């Protein structure tokens, strides 16, 4: 057996979690009070975990780098959250959600974890509604659903285009209640910079107070890392500017394994890059694909005319347009999973059919949806012989009610009116399926160090389906971790408060301090962003949507070079003991410069295509991703060896007892 023990309970798939919960050890309420838990990150995973643990009675110390827990980047999730409620009666079930998620993840996730996720999904909706989350409702007052990519049922609950915001504010309000009671001690504007391990167990963290610059020690009986994903390694992504890998990377360097780091989700519907100044990319919700049709010109000369501004998209007639997703994938059409849609856009743009100045954009068109809804409304309102413009107006109102805020956002950013001309979109880095390896209990390879949400690797395999990230974050935080952590903490009821004066704490603090001083003392000539942008370009070009052996090898060499240069020539202004955003950035980019290499190493190791990881060497004749289940049906968990260029690979074989591995098809 490998060093990786996933601790999946025995028994049939549908009984595993409930049987396991029944046998798990509990901590009695009086003892919980004397047990501290640190939670790093206050997004859906961290916020919900903090609230749930505090409600149970644990003393929680929560940390976030933002100025309030409400600002975690979960807030930006737009489209919705999946749950196997089957409110629409369209044949949904726990098993179907489980199956769709495994299939969507291209058979690279753990069966037992995914089944548990599907199982608790319904509870999430109940819990959120009880908290006052205002989900969309129909006229009967019941919850409404919509459909998302890669599935054929409507199981996505939503609150306009701000579902993540509403769910996060729900978790934040649950946290606020506990903060008010003193059960959660909230440390905002704090960044975790190291994990402290005492006698083989995670017992605390070193954090920097970002306002005063002080380095602080915080102790606890267990540490939960819920610090999100690492998409910002690409510099340009839909992540927030502050999103970073630091917490996850530091525990990796303390012994936690980093699993499948190359699994990156490139989201198909983002606003294209407009210039060199660009600092981040903005996502347009996948829900737009419910009604929008994606196309490029059928003929190269039309594409050229559009690129040079000699022609407008609305000038092209239907027969001169190529609705390439509908053409290639007739059964799923515009609602294919994200990885498929992204690659298809790249394929068209690489072939020269891109529609903006850089040639890296395709159209997302609502014209036919507007007319379709308009006709429907005209019927409802019994309008006889409505004119085209009446229909357009009625349809526009419907589209506005559904997607108004997204259209408005698009308009503000691009200055183009999407009601009148099709939106331009292009894929962008959005989510990272890879993350810290955890077992069934969500515990990493370090005893007492748990990892939840996007920061762990467990549920989405090689590709995440839309509306599943919110589901996973909340499932981990509300319904999984609070149980599994009790089993571990049951041993700690007599431990008492962990001292922060032990040699381990002092040593960790000194290490953090010297790393920061090192960065400050380089006093080179280039800003942190300069290096971050260079890293991002290498990652996007060579470890992005399509990867090959040569490119990956080049990437590894280039990243090493950038890293060396960074440590010789970066200029970090300001001092350690003050509010210093440049120092924060430098410390995060230093970690990205190491992670980037690991991603390339992992991508190189995985000589198959699966989900978001597309190896050009491994494709079908039609250009679809070709998996290699014989050789790669495993989780690649990388262990830090002391040298970032030579990580040790551990494999956790993925055993499928309940479903058959097949080549994914959305045709």
């Amino acid at each position, binding site marked *: 057996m490998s060093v990786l023990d996933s601790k999946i309970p025995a028994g049939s798939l549908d009984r595993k979690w409930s049987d396991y919960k029944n046998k798990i050890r509990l901590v009695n309420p009086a003892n919980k009070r004397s047990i501290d838990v640190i939670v790093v990150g206050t997004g859906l995973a961290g916020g919900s975990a903090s609230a749930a643990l505090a409600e149970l009675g644990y003393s929680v110390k929560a940390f976030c780098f933002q100025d309030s827990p409400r600002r975690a980047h979960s*807030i*930006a999730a737009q489209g919705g959250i999946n749950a196997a409620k089957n409110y629409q009666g369209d044949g949904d079930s726990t098993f179907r959600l489980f199956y769709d998620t495994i299939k969507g993840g291209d058979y690279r996730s753990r069966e037992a974890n995914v089944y548990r996720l599907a199982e608790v999904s319904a509870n999430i909706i109940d819990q959120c*509604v*009880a908290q006052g*989350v205002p989900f969309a409702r129909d006229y009967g007052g019941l919850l409404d659903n919509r459909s998302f990519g890669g599935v054929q049922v409507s199981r996505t609950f939503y609150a306009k285009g701000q579902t993540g915001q509403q769910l996060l504010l729900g978790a934040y309000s*649950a946290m606020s209640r506990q903060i008010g009671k003193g059960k959660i001690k909230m440390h905002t504007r704090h960044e975790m910079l190291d994990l402290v391990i005492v006698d083989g167990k995670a017992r605390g963290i070193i954090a920097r107070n970002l306002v005063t610059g002080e380095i602080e020690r915080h102790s606890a009986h267990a540490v939960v890392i819920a610090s999100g994903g690492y998409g910002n390694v690409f510099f340009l992504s*839909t992540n927030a500017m502050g999103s970073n890998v630091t917490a996850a990377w530091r525990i990796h360097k303390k012994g936690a394994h980093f699993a499948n780091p190359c699994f990156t989700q490139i989201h198909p519907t983002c606003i294209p890059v407009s210039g060199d*100044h660009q600092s981040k990319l903005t996502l347009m919700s996948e829900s737009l694909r419910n009604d929008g049709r994606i196309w490029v010109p059928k003929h190269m000369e039309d594409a050229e005319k559009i690129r040079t501004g000699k022609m407008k998209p609305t000038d092209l007639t239907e027969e001169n347009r190529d609705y390439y997703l509908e053409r290639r994938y007739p059964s799923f059409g515009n609602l294919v999973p994200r990885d498929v849609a992204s690659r298809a856009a790249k394929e068209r743009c690489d072939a020269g059919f891109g529609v903006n100045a850089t040639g890296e954009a395709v159209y997302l068109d609502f014209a036919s949806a507007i007319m379709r809804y308009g006709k429907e409304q005209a019927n409802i309102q019994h309008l006889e012989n409505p004119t085209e413009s009446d229909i357009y107006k009625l349809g526009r109102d419907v589209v506005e009610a559904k997607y108004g805020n997204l259209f408005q956002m698009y308009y*503000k950013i691009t200055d183009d009116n999407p009601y009148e001309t099709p939106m331009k979109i292009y894929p962008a880095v959005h989510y990272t399926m890879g993350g810290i390896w955890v077992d069934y209990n969500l515990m990493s390879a370090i005893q007492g160090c748990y990892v939840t949400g996007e920061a762990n690797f467990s549920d989405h395999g090689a590709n995440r389906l839309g509306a599943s990230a919110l589901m996973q974050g909340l499932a981990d935080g509300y319904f999984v971790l609070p149980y599994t952590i009790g089993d571990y903490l049951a041993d700690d009821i007599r431990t008492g408060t962990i001292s922060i004066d032990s040699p381990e704490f002092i040593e960790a603090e000194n290490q953090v301090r010297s790393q920061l001083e090192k960065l400050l003392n380089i006093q080179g000539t280039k800003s942190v962003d300069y290096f971050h942008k260079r890293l991002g370009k290498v990652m996007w070009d060579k470890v992005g949507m399509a990867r090959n052996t040569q490119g990956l090898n080049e990437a590894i060499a280039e990243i090493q070079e950038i890293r060396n240069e960074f440590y010789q020539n970066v200029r970090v202004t300001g001092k350690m003991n*003050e509010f210093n955003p440049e120092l924060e950035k430098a410390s995060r980019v230093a970690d990205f410069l190491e992670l980037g290499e690991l991603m390339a190493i992992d991508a190189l190791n995985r000589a198959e295509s699966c989900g978001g990881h597309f190896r050009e060497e491994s494709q079908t004749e039609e250009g679809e991703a070709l998996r290699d289940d014989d050789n790669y049906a495993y989780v690649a968990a990388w262990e830090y060896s002391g040298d970032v260029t030579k990580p040790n690979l551990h494999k956790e074989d993925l055993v499928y007892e309940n479903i058959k591995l097949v080549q994914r098809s959305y045709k």
Partner: protein
Amino acid sequence: MKLTLKIWRQKGPNDKGQMVTYPIDNIDGDMSFLEMMDVLNNQLIESGDDPIAFDHDCREGICGMCSLYINGEAHGPDRGVTTCQLHMRKFSDGETIYIEPWRAKAFPVIKDLVVDRSSFDRIMASGGFVSVNTSGNTVDANAIPVPKADADNAFEAATCIGCGACVASCKNASAMLFVSAKVSQLALLPQGQVEAADRVLNMVKTMDEEGFGNCTNTGACEVECPKGISLENIARMNREYMSAMVK
């Protein structure tokens, strides 16, 4: 585009602070306001100066972190956007732009353009929630139908991003729009009605203690709110407060 920036610089909470002028060139209309600030900061760093500290995170208008008072208005002259979504095409070549932090007693300056908005969190902790514990046993989500109009109004109120533009714009630095948005959201939903009276009393009490001003109903908050939170929420909170007071 060539611009003159007049920016508030303040080393720390106890520093007096002052407006400092920075010329900047080669600004593209497609840049967001914060990207323009990035350009300026990179220039400052490369010339060895201290870059300007400003809060920002998601840069897509939803996290509520960015908070600049631009040319005398919260989030600048455009409507319905946060600073990160404000684009430079809204300014003209040669313009002078004033950039200041939110100003309120309850939002003390930390550095330059960064302020401490934790007073909002404390208001939330005093009652901005429904007291329901996490369990797998809450009633089924569809067991309590909510009229669509109520659900939609609650949602509109709940879209508040807690950026503080309302406080910054209000001549009295009042937090009424922020507080009323949460009070309204939960008062409109059956789940929140059980605690409605205590909630409004406690949240308003904390709001007053934090040193925010009173509402003069000027409506500036509604105009400047990047999410268009309606003054109707303030009216609703006034009603809620009255009925809570006489209870």
